[in-house]
């Protein structure tokens, strides 16, 4: 008898795919030349060092080949991408002042509501510029800075100059160089010593223009003994042309501080998501990554933690859901560069309808990093045999005084588990539902509430027959 398969719905893109009419105040030409770069820089009224930085990055970009070790990027024509689009709106601190159409988009995405209910501050980027920014007064009073990168460059130039692209230098890879050349928008957060930001801050990036690239820069500095939870959300409607997202996230976690950084990337299926995220952690500091990759045609995303202070700690919790036409090459990198550092990776993936999920990770222990501990756990669930699921974690040890464990599992829901639950009086359908929910639960419980709800909606499980 043919076993019936449980149908797990695709991500419901209804609200994400609504596109607005494409209007703009300024738009750069397609492609990339020093003239375009200088024009973007002039539009933004930037200091000379930044213009020079952009031009230098462009040189590096032109000298580097497109990487060929991972996803197939041959469909991505960089000469066709528009690198800068200034929306027809000024930055506002009140939703009432944001142009109706753009506000509608964010209303549909639930951002103003989330701000009212559970966030301490919100930034909203539309195409290349941030159109809305707000932060609660009590945080401002404690010295917390939360603004868009352009404002930060103007008002806090010294801090920006000290940190900007030092963790992800443009020489790192082609798309880091591209970012250095054409970056625009993004968030700047500075938490002073000993401040505990107990309600999350959230930035949302929305790409509306067809054939455009989005290159937002996120720079977060958490000083000694502070705490911050930062949330990022991204989406874009689907166009027939390919879009490119090459953002850059740089996180600096100082001594004894803790940063929780959550992102759900839910780009449309014409998007190449080639983002670079990196965090450096000082003594006894800790970084917690919560990462969800759902959308995009191709993703190559490997957030990296560099544990450079004694006792620094990194935790990574990630889920990837690859469906039809998607190749999601994601993972995480952890560099233990100091003694007594600890890290844990918990990665899960689901693939269906010909989707391809790839876990590519790196765990590296430097010669001086004695007494460190690390665990890596990867689990993949395949929902049909048109899909693919691969795991390739690299573990590189240069020291003997360590404790390292790695585990990976691949497969579908086991008949034994279903049988066991059924023997305890649970119906077959319920048993399967429990198992799939149990599979994603360790991730959902880490997500902020509104994203946990979103995730449950995204993975809408119709229970009929067996999983597999």
């Amino acid at each position, binding site marked *: 008898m043919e076993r019936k398969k449980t149908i797990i719905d695709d991500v419901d893109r209804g609200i994400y795919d609504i596109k607005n009419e494409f209007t703009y105040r300024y738009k750069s030409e397609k492609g990339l030349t020093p003239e375009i770069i200088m024009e973007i820089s002039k539009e933004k009224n930037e200091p000379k060092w930044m213009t020079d930085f952009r031009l230098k990055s462009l040189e590096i970009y032109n000298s580097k080949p497109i990487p060929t070790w991972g996803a197939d990027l041959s469909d991505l024509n960089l000469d066709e991408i528009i690198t800068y689009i200034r929306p027809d709106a000024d930055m506002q601190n009140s939703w009432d002042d944001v142009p109706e159409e753009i506000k509608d988009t964010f209303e549909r995405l639930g951002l103003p509501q989330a701000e009212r209910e559970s966030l301490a501050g919100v930034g909203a980027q539309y195409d290349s510029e941030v159109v809305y920014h707000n932060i609660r007064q009590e945080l401002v009073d404690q010295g917390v800075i939360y603004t868009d990168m352009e404002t930060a460059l103007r008002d806090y130039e010294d801090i920006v100059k000290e940190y900007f692209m030092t963790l992800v230098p443009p020489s790192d890879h082609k798309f880091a160089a591209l970012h250095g050349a054409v970056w625009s928008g993004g968030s700047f957060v500075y938490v002073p010593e000993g401040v505990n930001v107990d309600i999350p801050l959230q930035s949302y990036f929305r790409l509306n223009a067809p054939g455009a690239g989005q290159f937002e820069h996120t720079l977060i500095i958490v000083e000694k003994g502070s705490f911050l939870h930062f949330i990022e959300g991204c989406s874009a409607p689907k166009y027939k042309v390919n879009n490119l997202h090459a953002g850059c996230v740089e996180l600096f976690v100082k001594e004894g501080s803790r940063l929780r950084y959550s992102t759900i990337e839910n780009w449309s299926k014409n998007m190449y998501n080639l983002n670079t995220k990196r965090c450096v952690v000082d003594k006894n500091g800790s970084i917690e990554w919560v990462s969800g990759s759902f959308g995009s045609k191709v993703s190559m995303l490997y957030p990296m933690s560099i544990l450079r202070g004694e006792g620094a700690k990194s935790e990574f919790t990630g889920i990837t859901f690859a469906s039809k036409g998607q190749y999601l090459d994601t993972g995480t990198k952890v560099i233990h560069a100091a003694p007594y550092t600890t890290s844990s990776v918990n990665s899960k993936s689901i693939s269906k309808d010909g989707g391809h999920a790839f876990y590519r990770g790196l765990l590296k222990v430097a010669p001086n990093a004695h007494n460190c501990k690390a665990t890596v756990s990867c689990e993949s669930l395949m929902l049909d045999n048109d899909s693919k699921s691969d*795991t390739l974690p690299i573990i590189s040890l240069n020291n*003997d005084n360590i404790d390292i464990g790695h585990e990976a599992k691949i497969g579908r829901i086991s008949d034994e588990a279903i049988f066991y639950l059924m023997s305890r009086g649970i119906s077959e359908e319920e048993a399967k539902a429990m198992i799939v929910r149990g599979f994603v639960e360790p991730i959902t419980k880490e997500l902020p509430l509104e994203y946990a709800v979103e995730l449950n909606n995204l993975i809408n499980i119709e229970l009929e027959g067996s999983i597999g």
Partner: protein
Amino acid sequence: MITWKRIGLDNLTFPDVPEYSKDFIDGEVNHPKEIKLYKTKEVFNDYEYHGLGKEFIEYINNNYNSGATLILSRGTKINEPIKIEFTMDDDNPSVVDYNIIVAEEGSEATIIFDYKSDHAVSAFHNGLTKVYAKENSIINIIKIQRLNDSSMNFDSNVAYVEGRGKVNWISIELGSSISGANYTTFLNGEASEGNLSTIYLGDGTRRMDLGYTMIHKGPRSISNIDTKGVLMDQARKVFRGNLDFKKGARLSKGSEEEYVILLDPKVKSDSIPGLFCEEDDVMGNHAASAGQIDNNKLFYLMSRGLSERDAKKLIVESSFRPIINNIPSETLRKEINAEVERRFLNA
């Protein structure tokens, strides 16, 4: 010229290989007439297999100076292991061997390959072993590499396994300054099975690149990779273990495990366990772990009067023992244990 980044093999060029004039097929065993065992006369490239690299295989095809061909006819079962033994010395410093093993339906045999060297020679080994295991056959291959510290070892191994056939590899990596070993098993038939157990011991400045791959094509195929290693001094190793479930490998199961004990802060250990899957109804697991010797175990043994070194040696030996015990030759088991011990005494 060949360069491997991870273990620092720089610009390797293959030497000119003189004839290997020694006898390498053990003639003492009385084989039944259903067995054909002779020096390899011709090579054949019927399947794509690149082993340690295209250059290595091409070189062997054109330059092999030794190698055994074994053909087991239908239903033949041999209890005594067949030994192929290469001892490299000043007159015979290089072995480039091409080995072919064809196991017809229902046949069974164990073949031991032993590569060793005189202490003075800088030996070079580059070999290729191909195994064709037909329906219901069982082939056990034991490879022991114990060349001296100034030698180089490269060894490519491939098996094609048909329905309910079974290939069991045991690989013992003890010697050479640099060693590359590749074992690839194609589980082509339904319920075919591939097992690989290996031990490696890295001391001094020894460098090893170990690649183990199980490719599941047949439904209900089973594979298992079990690797135990020890690194000390400034030894470096790369472990690449791959489980690859191709479309059609329904209800297959594969698992791989690597455990490495690190005994010196200067060692370098890379593990790259890959799991590739394009079929949903399979089970794949891999686990890798690394660490120092368990302090509780060490404390326990030392409290029973053992010195620290002896206690460590005992723990390492006990991790190797289950694999060494599967070698069906008392003499070889003793020699391997003695070699492990000798390396510890030098450490």
